[in-house]
């Protein structure tokens, strides 16, 4: 009884915070629906509703909603959730709030895979597959290198940085040999990120990888807290630190690679969204992971709306996330400094 009364004293916890998390998880749904209305051809809410759930609507509108906009927006939501959740998980296990989904070289590896696929003219499916494989390869290499030198956090970060820059050089190498009129622009645009090419066929593999990665990290989320303690503390609490860390890295890498293979390189979401989520619901991963998923999906949907509606041509996503993400991050950072340091 005493325990319950004690906890009811602060309204923020647990009901308030759980409610907030639920709200953040549901947030992408209305945004997704609203986003279906937006585009070169503006649509009414009734038409969109009828296309989605059956009703009288012109076949062209239905096709536009179901075959063009819906897959793209679902991809945006999944990519956003994937990057944010893997970013949150990586920040946790690397015990460093400046780490993001790309820390293990996934993006650089995926970029190399995609560039290679374009030079080999292997088509959209080939690009997705090679990008995914490249991402996994790079992260796998970083983890192997890291483990070979003791497997501590610092070595892992260092090998991530090394592998990243190695694969960036490989990308440059491929670019150097690419046909400058067709392939080179293709590679360059891919590396700037974007979802304009997404079709239903791209969604299935993304959805499967996301389900595994998000599901796994959601199951592990309370334990992830223990990895943010020192290794000795975590071990003394009965945790097999290396095993849980490896599992988390594997799931986070799967999420990032699947996202990047569809969207190209999209930065900053995996860094900033976890911070924003932490500012809203606190650092406990029990709440942070689902909050990051919802917020990440919502944020990338918004970015993608800007990308596809503001100019006559698409604006690459990475440019937007950078232009908006950097100032936002700076503000977060400044606020943190003003509060007297201490990351939340």
């Amino acid at each position: 009884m005493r325990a319950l009364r004690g906890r009811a004293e602060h309204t923020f916890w647990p009901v308030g915070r759980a409610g907030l998390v639920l709200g953040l998880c549901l947030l992408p749904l209305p945004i997704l629906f609203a986003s279906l209305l937006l585009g070169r051809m503006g649509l009414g809410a009734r038409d969109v509703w009828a296309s989605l759930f059956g009703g009288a609507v012109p076949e062209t509108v239905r096709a536009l909603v179901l075959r063009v906009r819906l897959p793209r927006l679902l991809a945006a939501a999944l990519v956003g959730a994937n990057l944010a959740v893997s970013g949150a998980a990586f920040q946790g296990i690397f015990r460093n709030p400046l780490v993001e989904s790309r820390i293990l070289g996934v993006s650089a590896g995926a970029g190399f895979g995609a560039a290679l696929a374009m030079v080999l003219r292997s088509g959209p499916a080939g690009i997705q597959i090679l990008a995914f494989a490249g991402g996994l390869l790079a992260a796998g290499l970083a983890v192997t290198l890291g483990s070979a030198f003791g497997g501590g956090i610092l070595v892992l970060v260092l090998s991530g940085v090394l592998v990243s820059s190695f694969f960036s050089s490989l990308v440059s190498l491929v670019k150097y040999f690419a046909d400058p009129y067709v392939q080179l622009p293709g590679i360059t645009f891919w590396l700037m990120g974007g979802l304009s090419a997404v079709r239903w066929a791209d969604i299935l593999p993304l959805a499967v990888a996301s389900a595994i990665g998000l599901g796994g990290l959601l199951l592990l989320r309370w334990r992830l807290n223990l990895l943010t303690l020192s290794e000795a503390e975590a071990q003394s609490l009965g945790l097999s630190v290396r095993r849980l860390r490896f599992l988390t890295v594997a799931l986070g890498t799967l999420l990032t690679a699947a996202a990047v293979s569809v969207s190209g390189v999209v930065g900053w979401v995996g860094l900033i969204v976890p911070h924003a989520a932490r500012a809203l619901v606190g650092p406990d991963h029990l709440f942070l992971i689902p909050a990051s998923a919802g917020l990440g999906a919502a944020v990338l949907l918004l970015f993608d709306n800007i990308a596809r509606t503001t100019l006559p041509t698409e604006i690459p996503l990475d440019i937007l996330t950078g232009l908006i993400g950097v100032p936002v991050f700076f503000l977060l950072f400044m606020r943190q400094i003003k509060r007297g340091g201490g990351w939340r």
Partner: protein
Amino acid sequence: MSLVGRDIFYAYSPEKYVLSGVSITVEGGEVLFLLGANGSGKTTLLECLCGVRFPQAGEISVDGLPFSVLSARERAKRIAYVPQFPEAAFAYTVEEMVLFGRAPHVGPFGRPGKKDHEKVEEALSQVGLENLRARPVNTLSGGERRLVLIARGLAQEAPYLLLDEPDAHLDPANQHRVLSVVRALARKGLGVVATTHNPNSALLYGQKVILLRTGKILAEGDPYRVLSPEILREAYGIPFQLLDGAGAKAFIPHVERG
């Protein structure tokens, strides 16, 4: 019922032993202080006793069960480790931090439930931190942070508590606050091992002391009997003098004033 380490050898690099043949026994209900100069092996011994490090030779057992037959989780239900400072990368609240002590009792994919929250409340009230439960740990004073980690150890429900320098970097009042909580817990049946650099802490709060020098036991037993200016000089390499009066003893370094 006791936590026993027998003939423990530990080396960080080949043949350079930090611990060479140390044996230690702590019973429920007593506080054992580990004393010794920097690098004498105190913290290493503590980390071996909580299973964070694996000795190259020797055996450790808790309540008759050798570590070799215990899983990490089973071990964590029996032995709690309290480091000097919480090293969390994020600003967890007191309540969240203490809840982490429930880890060995929560399944791998589980999350803490009502019973776990009740244990947290119990632990917080035992160390007197009920009113701080919603505060981020990094906003607390040094003494309060130490108590948070002790509460986490209590939430772990382990009968043995290992503390790394619980009295370091604290003013005398906070040293007393922390160590008197530790002593009260021992009186309720907990077995405690604590490292310290202050021989007087052992005199005031301990039932047993082990004095280490370069990985070997120099002296052990009742602190009042074992500790002497001569043995402290041997341990630390500088002369000490004993202040004895009004029923209490204390040691201070015997060096030139001013």
